[in-house]
């Protein structure tokens, strides 16, 4: 018993470290951001630039707040599209990863096509999708799915293929069949990997949604940006861009939160190995 070491005392020491690292994690990017805004503000005010071409961040903030009502409607529409598109991308990505893993023939047949699908410039085919599926939701969802399913597929497939061969052998000696092994060994082991893909996908999905609106729509952040641009309201465009970035970050952080709740063991293990998480 004396040779066994349990990490309770370590944990209490760690919590102070974790708190510190969390503060740094928030403070460092906030400081960088403030610095950037300060430079921008200084340049816009004292640089002799036409404020219509380069509005100052303070001005952008003011007009964005004034326009909040319109902007909020646009955000709602885009978030709605993003949610549906991302949901489908998640489903498609996860199912395709599992199928590619389970069926070697599919892996050989479909994987290259998936890879090729990623090199298709969506700019070029989005108008075609619009033509085939109309200006409704379906064309937009397809654009979003195309722009973000792939990271989920690749990361998920990698995770599934990296399952512990010793654990699989052991489960076989338990008399476990293919499906049981998949459910009890391979899927839970692949979850951290899946989440890496999902984190990338969520940020792509917002861009995908806005882009799909660019092609043809009546509402949404994409439309808001286009309209503002046509009215030469660069201040509004910049405001919408910043809001979009904020939304992406918020969604990314939410996914990370869900990840910590779903695979807490993964982060605990990393911390115990002295890796940052």
């Amino acid at each position, binding site marked *: 018993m004396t*040779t066994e070491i*349990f990490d309770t005392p370590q944990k209490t020491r760690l919590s102070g470290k974790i708190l510190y690292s969390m503060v740094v994690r928030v403070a460092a990017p906030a400081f960088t951001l403030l610095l950037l805004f300060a430079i921008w503000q200084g340049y816009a005010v004292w640089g002799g630039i036409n404020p219509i071409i380069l509005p100052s961040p303070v001005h952008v903030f003011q007009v964005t707040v004034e326009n909040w009502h319109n902007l909020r409607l646009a955000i709602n529409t885009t978030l709605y599209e993003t949610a549906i598109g991302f949901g489908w991308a998640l489903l498609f990505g996860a199912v395709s990863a599992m199928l590619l893993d389970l069926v070697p023939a599919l892996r050989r047949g479909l994987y290259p096509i998936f890879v090729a699908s990623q090199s298709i410039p969506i700019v070029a085919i989005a108008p075609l999708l619009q033509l085939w599926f109309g200006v409704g939701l379906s064309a937009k969802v397809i654009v979003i799915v195309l722009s973000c399913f792939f990271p989920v597929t690749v990361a998920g497939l990698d995770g599934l293929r990296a399952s512990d061969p*010793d654990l699989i*052998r052991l*489960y076989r*000696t*338990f*008399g476990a069949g293919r499906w049981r092994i998949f459910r009890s060994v391979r899927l839970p082991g692949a979850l951290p990997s899946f989440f890496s893909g999902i984190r990338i996908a969520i940020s792509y999905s917002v861009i995908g949604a806005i882009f799909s609106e660019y092609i043809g729509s009546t509402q949404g952040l994409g439309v808001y940006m286009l309209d503002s641009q046509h009215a030469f309201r660069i201040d509004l465009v910049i405001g919408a861009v910043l809001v979009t970035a904020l939304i992406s970050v918020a969604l990314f952080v939410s996914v990370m939160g869900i990840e910590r709740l779903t695979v807490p063991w993964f982060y605990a*293990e990393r911390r115990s190995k002295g890796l940052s998480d």
Partner: protein
Amino acid sequence: MMTEPQNYALEARNIYQSYQNGAGTLVNALQSVSFGVRPQEFVSIIGPSGAGKSTLLGLLAGLESQTSGEVFLHNRQVTAKQRLGNVGFMPQKDALAPWRTALDNAVAGLEVKGTPRKEATMLALNLFRRMGLEDFARTYPYALSGGMRQRVALARSALAAGDLLLMDEPFGALDALTRSDMHKWILEVWQSMRKTILLVTHDIQEALVVSDRILVMSARPGTMVAELVVDLPRPRTIEIQTGQAFNTMREQLAKKLESTT
């Protein structure tokens, strides 16, 4: 080594195993391997590395089929597929699922068998108590030491299937102190659960401390070349381990092993 018909918990008759290696040549891993393990007997197989000990154990567990020969469980001939789920197996690495607590890892085999959750938990907790693991039931593997992890893995394999437990050098990666600690736990499992154990090892000392009988295997192709009955009293205390009889057996086995390589 074949004697008159016996009541065996596990018996291998004339097992051959060959496979194609990377270069495409046929390798005979096992040749004419025959032996039996009686119910509640503790038998060890020692042999040089590459003797095909792990191959033999994987095959007996049902992970692979033998090229020829027969395997019997309680005097009934069984195919590899029939062995899966009926023979307990403990691999070299602890292979604990990092997403499960120690207790949830330990019930994995029972879970596959369809044992009700409550019953499985009770069985595992009982064993944990006997193995000094009860305080770590809810601990995740990353927070356990190597010896502790291996002990959880032992509990998992012991609970998994039937009365037979095959162990594939499960203590190879542990330091000497932890290893002798493990011998205590494996004997505890063996006695309290009335298991029949077949242990593969390359450590003569280990084999002498735990076994009723030791089989010596030669390398390439692997086959049984000697047998030694360890008729020493249990528990095998330090006094016994430093005694004349123990040393003579150790010397015999060492010479036998040397002559096989």
